[in-house]
């Protein structure tokens, strides 16, 4: 958005949609004219006060922004080091940060005259947020969701259906987010005239990574100001979980040019980074490749075939990551670290018991990273975690894991 000089890390993407080596527009010709059209519409909308006002009004009265910045005192005492703060995106309408992006994109779809919405979803949070805005703006919508995820995120499947969405389970592959995205792309190619593809994370072909980042950047912008008001300085560290990377880039973007703020992205470490095909940590365990419209870090075999990966968290169970994160990884501005299923489950329980906040399993990965670094930091320092979503959707799966059911 606002660039701050030639050495700024906030200048990307370039005209070709690249963040350094990453990003781009690796799509079938059928989609190319539409993607160019989308970019033109987005460029116009971005500077149109009426569009920006509408987003702002909806953010305030529909989503409930700004989301609070909360000092987690008992958690802080428990960890015994840095003060831990939570940016409470889980209090947003629909229960996660996903709504921030959906509102921006649905208004764009309207401007473009599209009459049907499709989306992919993993945890179902993006599916729910999409179904929600489609109900509000009276557009039919179809949500693609891997069959495995339909099973492990049942409450969200029901919510989507109640909101009027058609949920299409995808059985190809491991039946997770990657497969849902393939199927959404196939639908889009087929119905390109009428259909708007509302991508749920900061990945996909240009201009999606930029657009989704812009819509999510409200998280970091608010939190910077809220923290300044509370503590009169910048936080020492900021942490977010990384699936495709939308809540993380939205949280980090405002801090990219503040080198004194350490940034940490928590990737899905699954059964552990050394277990082949047993994790979804694309930056720790993958290498650059091209999938779903962009070049980025991917989990792949020696032949360039994409691996399915694994995570306990459906929202992080994706073998790629948004291209801007790939760039920030190479430039070492952000530290990406894997968190195992077990560490995430422990974090899930800790937050629930110390603060009375049930986090989404995705966000619990971020918290596990906080648990690793906070104890070694001084008591006069602060870490802010983006609590990207609430855990209502996960209570059944976690109950199963813990043997409570």
């Amino acid at each position, binding site marked *: 958005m606002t660039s701050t000089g030639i050495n700024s890390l906030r200048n990307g993407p370039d005209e*070709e949609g690249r963040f350094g080596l990453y990003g*781009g*527009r*690796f*799509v*079938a*010709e*059928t*989609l*190319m*004219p*539409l993607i160019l059209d989308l970019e033109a519409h987005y460029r116009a909308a971005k500077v149109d006060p009426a569009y920006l006002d509408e987003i702002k009004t909806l953010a305030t009265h529909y989503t409930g922004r700004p989301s609070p910045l909360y000092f987690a005192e008992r958690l802080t005492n428990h960890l015994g080091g840095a003060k831990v703060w939570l940016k409470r995106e889980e209090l947003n309408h629909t229960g996660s940060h996903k709504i921030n992006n959906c509102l921006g994109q649905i208004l764009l779809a309207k401007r473009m005259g599209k009459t049907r919405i499709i989306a992919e979803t993993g945890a179902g949070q993006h599916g729910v947020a999409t179904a929600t805005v489609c109900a509000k703006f009276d557009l039919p919508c179809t949500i693609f969701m891997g069959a495995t995820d339909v099973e492990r995120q049942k409450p969200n499947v029901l919510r989507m259906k109640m909101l009027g969405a058609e949920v299409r389970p995808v059985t*190809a*592959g491991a039946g997770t987010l*990657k497969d849902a995205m*393939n199927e959404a*792309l*196939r639908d889009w*190619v*087929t*119905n*390109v*005239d009428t259909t708007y593809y509302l991508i749920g994370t900061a990945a996909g072909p240009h201009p999606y990574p930029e657009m989704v980042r812009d819509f999510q950047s409200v998280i970091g912008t608010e939190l910077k100001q809220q923290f300044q008001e509370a503590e009169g300085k910048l936080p020492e560290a900021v942490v977010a979980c990384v699936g495709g990377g939308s809540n993380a880039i939205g949280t980090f973007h405002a801090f990219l040019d503040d080198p004194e703020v350490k940034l940490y992205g928590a990737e899905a470490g699954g059964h552990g980074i050394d277990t082949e095909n047993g994790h979804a940590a694309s930056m720790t365990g993958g290498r650059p*490749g*091209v*999938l*779903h*419209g962009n*070049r980025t870090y*991917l989990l*792949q075999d*020696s*032949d*360039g*075939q*994409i691996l399915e990966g694994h995570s306990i968290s459906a929202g992080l169970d994706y073998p790629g990551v948004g291209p801007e994160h790939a760039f920030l990884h190479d430039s070492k501005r952000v530290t990406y670290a894997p968190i195992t299923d077990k560490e995430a489950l422990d974090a899930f329980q800790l937050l629930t018991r110390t603060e009375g906040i049930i986090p989404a399993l995705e966000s619990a990965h971020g918290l596990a990273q906080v648990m690793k670094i906070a104890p070694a930091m001084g008591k006069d320092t602060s870490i802010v975690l983006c609590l990207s979503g609430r855990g209502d959707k996960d209570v059944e799966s976690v109950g199963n894991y813990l043997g409570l059911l």
Partner: protein
Amino acid sequence: MSRIEKRFAECKAAGRPALVTYVMAGDPDLATSQAIMEALPQAGSDIIEFGMPFSDPMADGVAIQLGGQRALAAGMTLRGVLGMVEDFRRKDETTPIVLMGYYNPIYSFGVDRFLAAAKEAGVDGLIIVDLPPEEDAELCIPALRAGINFIRLTTPTTDDRRLPAVLKNTSGFVYYVSMTGITGAAIKSRAAVGEAVARIKSHTDLPVAVGFGIKTAEDAAEIGRHSDGIVVGTVLVEAVAGSLVDGKASDRTVAAVRDLVASLAGGVKRARG
């Protein structure tokens, strides 16, 4: 003259469109797939489009997705695809071979290394679904430099304004995708296909082949009336699938593909009749 140019010229001289056949490399296993490939020219295929299997074929319907999965499960790799082409070339010097697939396995292999190996093996052209002209610097330009044709897909959404950009670095032939959709769907309007081919021809001297949705000899004859070539894929991959016993090749597998190609070849011969 390249093999592709030569073959289109021969078909033109014979007064018929070229029959371009797509099969998946390594489906259902290496030996059977090699036998299918070698049977294609005899059965009447003019140009072989050889699918490079990929884990995530975003522009393909179920039939070709499953074909790719069978090939990968049987151990096919990009190196393996090139090996098959090399073997084929020992016996057939003239039939053009176009590799079709997605970019990541090539990117992973290394672009320069891949192009050198492909040239050496006897590959004539590439169709890479997820490389639009906006990404020409990735593989298209290096391929042209290496003497390999880069065949571009044009679609119903490629309008007159965009066509010149799409055609700019295209060589060998132009592949018109008959519909907005994935492989295996049905063509909605044959008349519209004719108009689209005429529109593309007003922009280029390259041959125009039409693909997606051609299933029968009749389709081949009808669509072939308006084009320099027709591409058939899904039904051939389905023929492989239909011949399997317990998921394995049977003694009918090669014949199933060969018979279907022979029937399609009859269709293209009637196209201008």
